[in-house]
């Protein structure tokens, strides 16, 4: 009774301490005095040079088999590396999706040829992926995807539109979710996943600017785009099961609790060594939250490592984590008076402003708050 959700305690492996020190040294050397406004970009920061440097250090594909360019380290070591990168606001965005999601998908469901071709390039920090799931009429309701792949000689022909595709304009490939058959009674049938080369003729990538006027995501239009037979991932019609198996990885990582970390650090700095009681109380509350979230997120990483699929627990971490991330700028501005301005040369103002303009997306990307709470309710047996 009592514990509807399972958050097993974890002990970090002994190797973690040395790794942490190595990552901190690397960050000092690579980033130097990295301004707060840049740190606040968090895992949206895009730098191929940085990704390649990480690849050389063996910090991409850390847990994959060596024969595919991986390093066969533990999920908890990877966690430590990631949280250090994110806490420093390092520009890890280029390889992020490939390392977190696309690579593991290929490892699980890909053909030998696909694994041998893509994984070592991803591991080197040379090959970037984007996620082609959402469509104009299919957001939370992913099963409503209408982009269609039809069998043709030697492969598939794709027509349709994907939207909100982060980094499509930088990435080399997309993992595309497309309809290849009828949905069936449970609506989950007839979907398949493909690896699409973003330079294929007929494929157009159009920028969509975000709140801050920045170009992170895109609309990707497919007009008779040919995808070779060999680029189907897993089984035809098995797309839904494959996609949902990625979600625990996507939802529980340190990126779901550290997106506003730059603001938190600048808040501590702005508060000074002897803040008034109101500021001290607020700082302490945020600390209690982030410390607890970190333990929950680590716990999910530990369970993933142990081969348990904690998808409900991952939904809990993302829901609480993004609530926290959104609270940070709100609380920070209530403590330290300032008028937000992007590009301010005051560290606190720069980090706060950037994060304020990103914050609404925290509880939308990767599954909205309402959808996650639905998953949690299902875990409670209510649905």
């Amino acid at each position, binding site marked *: *009774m*009592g*514990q*509807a*959700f399972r*958050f097993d*305690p974890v002990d970090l492996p002994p190797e973690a*301490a040395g790794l*942490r020190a190595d990552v901190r040294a690397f960050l000092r050397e690579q980033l130097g005095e990295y301004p707060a406004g840049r740190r606040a970009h968090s895992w949206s920061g895009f730098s191929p040079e940085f990704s390649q440097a990480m690849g050389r250090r063996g910090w991409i594909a850390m847990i994959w088999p060596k024969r595919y360019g991986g390093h066969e380290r533990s999920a908890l070591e990877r966690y430590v590396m990631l*949280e250090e990168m994110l*806490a420093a606001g390092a520009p890890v965005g280029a390889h992020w999706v490939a390392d977190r999601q696309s690579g593991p998908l290929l490892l699980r469901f890909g053909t030998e040829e696909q694994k041998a071709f893509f994984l070592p390039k991803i591991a080197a920090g040379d090959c970037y992926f984007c996620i082609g799931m959402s469509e104009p009429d299919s957001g939370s309701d992913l099963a409503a995807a209408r982009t269609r792949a039809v069998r043709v000689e030697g492969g598939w022909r794709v027509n349709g539109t994907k939207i909100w595709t982060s980094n499509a304009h930088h990435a080399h490939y997309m993992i595309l979710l497309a309809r290849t058959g009828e949905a069936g009674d449970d609506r989950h049938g007839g979907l398949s996943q493909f690896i699409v080369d973003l330079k294929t003729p007929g494929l157009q990538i159009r920028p969509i600017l975000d709140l801050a006027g920045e170009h992170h995501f895109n609309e990707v239009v497919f007009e008779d785009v040919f995808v070779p037979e060999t680029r189907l991932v897993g089984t035809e019609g098995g797309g839904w099961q494959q996609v949902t198996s990625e979600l625990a990885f996507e939802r529980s990582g340190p990126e779901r609790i550290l997106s506003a*970390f730059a603001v*938190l*650090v*600048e808040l*501590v*700095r702005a*508060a*000074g*060594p*002897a*803040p008034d*009681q109101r*500021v*001290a*109380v*607020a*700082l*302490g*509350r945020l*600390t*209690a*939250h*982030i*410390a*607890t*979230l*970190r*333990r*929950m997120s680590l*716990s999910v990483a530990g369970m993933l490592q142990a081969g348990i699929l904690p998808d409900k*627990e991952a939904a*809990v971490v993302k*829901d*609480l984590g993004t609530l926290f991330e959104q609270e940070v700028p709100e609380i920070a501005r209530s403590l330290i008076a300032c008028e937000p301005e992007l590009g301010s040369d005051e560290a606190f103002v720069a980090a706060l402003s950037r994060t304020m303009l990103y914050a609404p997306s925290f509880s939308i990307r990767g599954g909205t708050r*309402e959808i*996650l*709470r*639905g998953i*949690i*309710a299902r*875990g*409670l*047996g*209510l*649905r």
Partner: protein
Amino acid sequence: MSEMSENHDLLRHSLDRLFTQQVNRPVLEAAEAGTFPTALWSALEEAGLTLPMVPAEQGGAGGTAFDALAIVRAAGSHAAPVPLPETMLAGWLLWACGLKIPAGPLSIAPVRPEENLTLSANAGGGFRLDGRVTRIPWGRDARALAVLATAPDGLKVVLVEPGGFALTPARNLAGEPRDTLTFTGLAVKPGQVAPAPAGVDGAALHLRGAVMRSAQMAGALERSLDFTVRYAGERSQFGRPIGRFQAVQQQLAIFAGQTAAAGRAVDAAFEALAAGGDIAFVGAIAKARVGEAAGQGAAIAHQVHGAMGFTREHALHYGTRRLWSWRDEFGAESYWQEALGRRIAAAGAEAFWPLLTGTAD
């Protein structure tokens, strides 16, 4: 690790069985009306559950902090109206300074950081204890109290037996005794006094009290969540169980998240107790975080239960009134948040991440 968790599953099951048998509405109501549940206490003592961390030679169970956590959490979950955590803390104090641990329910004093007792030499030999302490859990029922008192030559642990001091009864919102004790020259024999060992002081006691209350609250939250989920499945309106309404599901999801966070925060504190970690940091986090979860969880539990949950008849209040009481005992959220915030601020921005990850130099 897996062997340990198997043992804990066993412990959890026997705790559940014991509390389910012993804690019921008549026992709870009688306790609130002033009758100490002696049968429950004897059952706990016979099962060796009252002094989990004290070595066997001193009359304890010789277990770990994780045993203590499992016991206190289960006691909180079942709203057991006995000073179980207080007895563990008294046992810890007495054992740490080599005093004998009496049998029976024990309590501690002071429990508020601003209160202080003094011990001085009595004219006719021995010592005298003076001062007033408030909100002493089960002060009236305790077979003995482990008391911290300031003496001219340093902090002492004093074993105080009942009688010889004035007691003004008071209760928390859940009807648990929280009494005021006034000592006016209470005679204390030298054999009842020992110097407090290094690391054992008022702050350490207060912190451990906060960690214990956090564990009780984690248990009470888990049980209240269970009650509420079950009720949402049983109560029908508009032709279906209310748990089928998305608005209710979203509230229960929030409740589940808060409960999960509380559980992890408490685990972390007991891990630090077991491993000798930074208990001042992790314990403060636990009380601050769990106290916040307690308020949110109790509010949702009541909202989902409707008017039924607002009655004395329904059992929900045994948990929620305790949550509302315990979150303010041994320092409310704001107390521990401020302590944490001061420490973070003094350490500075660059030390924040190392502190969070336990990697500060």
